């Protein structure tokens, strides 16, 4: 099956326009790209953790989802989705339903790396046949850009503000994709929205149609929190990937594969300089910040390459 964006776009949208996400928000683009990977004949139950996405896409009485949808709290989306999936198996076994459903859960980085990590870990370990998609915008955006464990070092967030005694966030980003891969689930991947969306499409399709618990970590830039122009989503995603800040890879049955290697690895500063949250790193005297950020990315990248076959 060859991927053609045009054909994909001709499919009926499962994620309707008219939601209340900010213009240029990466989250909505990620959701519609993932849902496009569903085969048209399949039904789905989409679920959410409380987040920007949730409060902007199901505001009573309007829902942006064509499929069935459920949200209940911030930290429990994986367990809740596991409950839906379990009900599906039982009701099917008991002959009460006959259609095929897929279960796709979206949570932000806060709801996934942080408060919902236990719930996610449990659901992955138990083996529910579902896809958990983290749309990672690297902070708690819904409550006003507070740091999460996905926020990168040096970022200026509202709970790690830059000040005379502070250079922004102290800690590096948690490597959640590797943590979920360590659960031994059949499919884990990192992706984002690039060019013709082939990467996210193929990974989402594979995740949805691999039996068992699968995990996608999607870098989903937030123009408001990252402070860049709302038209620049594609460029920001491209820079994240080409600087190796956000490498694209997948872990299939425990085997790690790079799915993209930049022809020329760009300096991290190319990515950082586009965003207001890193502006202080470019002030005179703060060159060490950029150096350390570069060093960190290089190390992670080398480790990742060594791990991949």
């Amino acid at each position, binding site marked *: 099956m060859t991927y053609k964006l045009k054909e994909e776009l001709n499919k009926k949208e499962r994620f309707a326009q008219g939601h209340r996400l900010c213009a240029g928000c990466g989250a909505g683009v990620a959701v519609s790209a993932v849902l496009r990977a569903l085969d048209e004949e399949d039904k789905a*139950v989409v*679920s959410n953790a409380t987040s920007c996405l*949730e*409060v902007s896409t*199901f*505001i*009573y*009485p309007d*829902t942006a*989802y*064509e*499929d*069935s*949808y*459920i*949200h*209940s*709290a911030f*930290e*429990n989306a994986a*367990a*809740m*989705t*596991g*409950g*839906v*999936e*379990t*009900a*599906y*198996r*039982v*009701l099917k*076994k*008991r002959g*009460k*339903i*006959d*259609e095929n*459903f897929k279960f796709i859960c979206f949570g932000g980085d806060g709801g996934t790396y942080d408060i919902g990590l*236990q*719930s996610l*870990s*449990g*659901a992955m*370990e*138990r083996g529910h046949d579902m896809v958990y998609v983290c749309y990672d915008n690297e902070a708690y955006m819904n409550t006003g850009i507070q740091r999460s464990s996905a926020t990168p070092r040096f970022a200026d967030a509202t709970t790690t503000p830059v000040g005379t005694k502070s250079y922004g966030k102290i800690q590096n980003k948690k490597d959640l994709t590797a943590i979920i891969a360590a659960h031994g689930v059949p499919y884990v991947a990192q992706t984002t929205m690039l060019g013709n969306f082939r990467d996210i499409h193929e990974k989402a399709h594979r995740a949805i149609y691999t039996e068992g618990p699968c995990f996608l970590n999607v870098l989903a830039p937030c123009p408001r929190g990252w402070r860049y122009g709302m038209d620049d989503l594609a460029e920001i995603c491209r820079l994240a990937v080409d600087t190796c800040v956000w490498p694209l890879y997948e872990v299939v049955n425990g085997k790690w594969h790079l799915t993209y290697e930049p022809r020329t690895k760009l300096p991290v500063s190319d990515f950082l300089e586009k965003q207001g949250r890193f502006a202080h790193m470019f002030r005179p005297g703060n060159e060490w910040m950029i150096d350390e950020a570069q060093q960190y990315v290089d190390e992670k990248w080398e480790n990742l390459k060594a791990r991949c076959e």
Partner: protein
Amino acid sequence: MRDRMSGNEAVAFAMKQIDPDVMGAFPITPSTEIPQYFSKYIADGEVHTEFVAVESEHSAMSTCIGASAAGARAITATSSAGLAYMWELLYVAASSRLPIVMAVVNRALTGPININNDHSDSMGCRDSGWIQIYAENNQEVYDNYIQAMPVAEHCRLPIMICQDGFITSHAVENIELLEDEQVRSFVGEYDPEHYLLKKDEPLAVGPYGISPYYMEIKKGQAEAMKESRTRIYEVAEAFAKISGRSYGMIEEYMMDDADFAVVLIGSSAGTAKAAAHGLREAGIKAGVIKVRVFRPFPWEELRKALRGVKAVAVMDKSEGFSGWGGPLFAETRAALYDLEESARPLLQSLVYGLGGRDVTVSTFEAIYEDLARTAEAGTVEHIYRHVGVRGDEEGIQG
């Protein structure tokens, strides 16, 4: 069918007879045996339920929410810290109108940690929008469990079926069980109108409910709770027909002509009845009111039953920390407010049995004696007291 079982086994047995779709549960003393018994039924092919052995009670309730919204009959069981850990989601289950059935084996809340019985766990979440039914003994908890789904599914409200930790959950007693067939036809099939997996009808559950809609949703829940009393009576009546055992919102014991009464919940009612019975032989008109259904609150029944009683102790097995008595006391007192003064009993709050503190027949005798003195004096000296606390001079010892 006669048998002998503990309260936990009785609940697990009722679950088996019902054969629900999904159970999500996590171990915590003293409710742990329920998922254990149930897992064994599954292992032996006696039920077809999917058991989800979650990593926490938070996920147990989340599993139930997902499963119930998807159209399945979903159950769980817990106690104490486990129930507290579910707190946030109890409100979600209720507002999403999901008829989840939870077996609660009441245990003290931690602070300090204690595994024994009191009602602080379920009393703490009394305002979460769940129906709450309490049992005095094994037979009652079994009977209440069988009635749970017909009540909850009709009202589209979640329900807690509570029993006292260890006292009821672990004590083996004689019990009269219904036949499987009787239970299945009594409980019936779960056939919700709307659910996530319904063919050709997608459903969205759990919206962001902005101010112009939020209150309507809450009022809907409140109405359902108010109306649930009718359903509770209907189901009890139907249950009496197949079992010969009758239930209401409250149970009155020797209340027809009582001068003195205690109002309480759960297993201590048995002890109170024994004390009242003994005092009756000595010519003292003692009575007992056992509150079976705490949510919705049986205010009409209590007002009727307590009318004209001289002095009443309302006994809470939980500290409400209101500084003025426990929750059962506060609500009972409110229920009596519009009785005319001559019919309004002298009322006091007694907090008892916390963390498994024993109460015996002689404790109740001391309470009734105290009520007699109160009636004699015509006034309540201490409105809010504790029972059996060492060195507590205002309190009741016995």
